């Protein structure tokens, strides 16, 4: 009886604790949401957390239709989807090679294909990258925005997957190998299903980062009708002022698909996490 009560209290404590953290985590998002319905002056006078006196729903209408965010959404999809999907495939293969296959110069390859790839942020390579795309005649195409981000995402996912593979119990691998399967089969039929949580996690992160990235498309794709959402947000920023409500609305519209996407794929993470990984 005592043990049950103690367990329950601890449980309750845990819940409260988690809810407090969740609250703090959500605060800025809440401010952003409120901000999208309010006027800037109102935010200044009554503070960021006050509820709107008038709900300016027209901001959403403006952003979606007048400012063509639907089109930006489509463009962002064109850039993000291929980047993430292809980078995951590349990363799965690369991680497999780095961990399970005999690779001369392995240590060097690890560095090149993970750390070095992850640490190169787009701001640093803008000018050479532009010239490269110019030489390859890829300027102003979605491909130009996809390729560098594909590389960055692949490097990152390789990093995550490699760590995951290294952490797997040995007997799992040996058991598979005893069957005499080919590399390809082992990788795709056995390892990938086990690695689903790692794949989903790195996929979710690279999706979000690519979704929100703006410097590469800004410089490599000048045509406004091809802008992704992150560049579209710049429409609300003038050189001197920034239209706060519209920026907030634009950010909510940009972020919402990502949240839904993540909520959606949660299901798979849970399934992959069941302890019966080895049946």
């Amino acid at each position, binding site marked *: 009886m005592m043990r049950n009560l103690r367990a329950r209290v601890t449980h309750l404590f845990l819940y409260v604790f988690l809810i407090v953290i969740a609250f703090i985590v959500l605060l800025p998002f809440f401010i952003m949401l409120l901000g999208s319905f309010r006027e*800037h*002056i109102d*935010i*200044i*006078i009554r503070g960021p957390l006050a509820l709107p006196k008038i709900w300016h729903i027209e901001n959403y209408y403006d952003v*979606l*239709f*007048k400012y*063509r*965010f*639907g*089109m*930006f*959404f*489509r463009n962002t*999809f064109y850039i993000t989807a291929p980047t993430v999907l292809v980078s995951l495939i590349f990363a799965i293969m690369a991680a497999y090679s780095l961990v399970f296959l005999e690779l001369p110069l392995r240590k060097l390859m690890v560095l090149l294909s993970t750390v070095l790839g992850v640490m190169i942020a787009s701001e640093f390579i*803008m*000018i050479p990258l*532009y*010239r490269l795309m*110019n030489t390859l005649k890829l*300027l102003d195409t979605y491909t130009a925005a996809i390729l560098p981000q594909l590389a960055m995402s692949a490097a990152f996912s390789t990093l995550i997957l490699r760590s995951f593979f290294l952490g797997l119990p040995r007997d799992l691998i040996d058991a598979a190998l005893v069957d005499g399967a080919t590399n390809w089969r082992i990788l795709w039929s056995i390892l990938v299903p086990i690695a689903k949580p790692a794949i989903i996690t790195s996929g979710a992160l690279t999706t979000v980062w690519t979704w929100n990235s703006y*410097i590469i498309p*800004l*410089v490599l794709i*000048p*045509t*406004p*009708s091809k802008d992704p959402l992150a560049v579209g947000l*710049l*429409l609300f*920023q*003038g*050189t*001197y*002022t*920034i239209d*706060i409500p519209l920026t907030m609305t634009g950010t909510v519209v940009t972020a919402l*698909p990502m949240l*839904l996407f993540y909520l*959606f794929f949660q*299901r798979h993470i849970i399934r992959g996490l069941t302890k019966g990984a080895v049946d």
Partner: protein
Amino acid sequence: MNKKEKLNFVLLVLVVLFFSLSGVFATGSQEKGKRAEKITLQMWDDYSGKTRDPVVKAAIEQFKKLHPNVDIQRTVRPLKDLTTMIIPALSAKKGPDMMVVNSGEQMEGPLVRGGHLVNLDPYAEKYGWTKKLLNPSLWNRVRYSEDGTVFGTGHIYGVSFDGELVGVYYNKDMFKGNGLGIPKSLDEFENVCEKLKGVGIAPIALAGLKDYRFFHLYALVQASVLSHDMGIEEAQKYLEDIVLRWKADRSFVIPGNIEAAKIIQDWVRKGYFVKGFLGLKGSDDLALFMAGKSAMFVQGSWYSTEIADSNINAGLFPFPPYKKGEPFSPQVGGATTPFGMSKYSKYKDLDAEFMNILLTSDTTVRLQKENSVLPARIPVSLKGIDKNTLYYDLLDDWNKINESGHMTFFLDWTTPTMWDTLAEGGRSLMGMKITPKEFVNKLEADYLNWQKNKPKPKK
């Protein structure tokens, strides 16, 4: 996939479809029929917002009537992002036909030196721009020598279609309610601040985190002090020698500059700025002013439309001279960020024609007047404009400025690093971390560094 998964997948597809389709409805038909000689001119600008966007759009309309087969495609971005796009593009000899080019060493200098901009003198001559618009000293601000080593004289590399000035926006009701008139001298200005503080109103809204708030204010105070110290003509010459001509025999370290810095620091000490202003972000200070939480806002005419539309009764007065009765002090301002033509444009004459429409058409002036913008066509007739409006004050100020022929500068044009030096120095000054003399020394150090590094004419 099991049933639930299938359902979720369908839902996802529907959501994606919804977003994509709303884009299609908004953009309408994508492909226009391709006619034989369809030309597209690319234009990269930052003319967003009510003050400039309508003017540009109208000019494009007019242009299209004259040239139906020519399309002008704009890419509108904030200036700093444009710079990020322009540098890689032009250095690879690509990019737009026309673009906004930030003044002086901010962007124009390097571009001229790299040979990327077209000398617009022939077109200015042909269309008579220098006769119709602005005044000569304003045109000097877009001039560079052919090799780009001398600023302020030489060929015209950029044009502007509206003017800008920095002045003191003030809340008319707050002034009237406290028996305050427009200050006519520095002392009177400080008295006004003191009185406002006494009744609990924050005199000046200024965002410490927004770099240029400080140095626009500083330039105004500086001009006032220097005009008193040296006389207006000398002061104007001094400023031009430093900002435009980078004369090595001039120095920032003069008593006038130090005094101007001291004045501002004293204002901080006396609490003339909004509480916590150092941690205030840009445009939040404007919001405070428009919300009626402070009496004055010292900034540029580019905010005029917004302020005019807000709920407060606002006016503008020029920053006063040092002593009462002294002549009209040079204000900060000039023509707006200039607009240039790329050497790699294949349609230079068409570009120039468009520029001409933008600069000189009557529609431009009409739209500018409708949106409280300062036209480049001066002097501006005040007929028919309500004396009580903000716009009246602005135009009055603008006319006075152009008439006097004296104008001080956005000091950041001087060297490529000056923006940062002024911003950081200003914050240290207002944060009481350095003395006025140390502040001026920082400017001087930056200037001397530029003397070493500035482009030298090729012999």
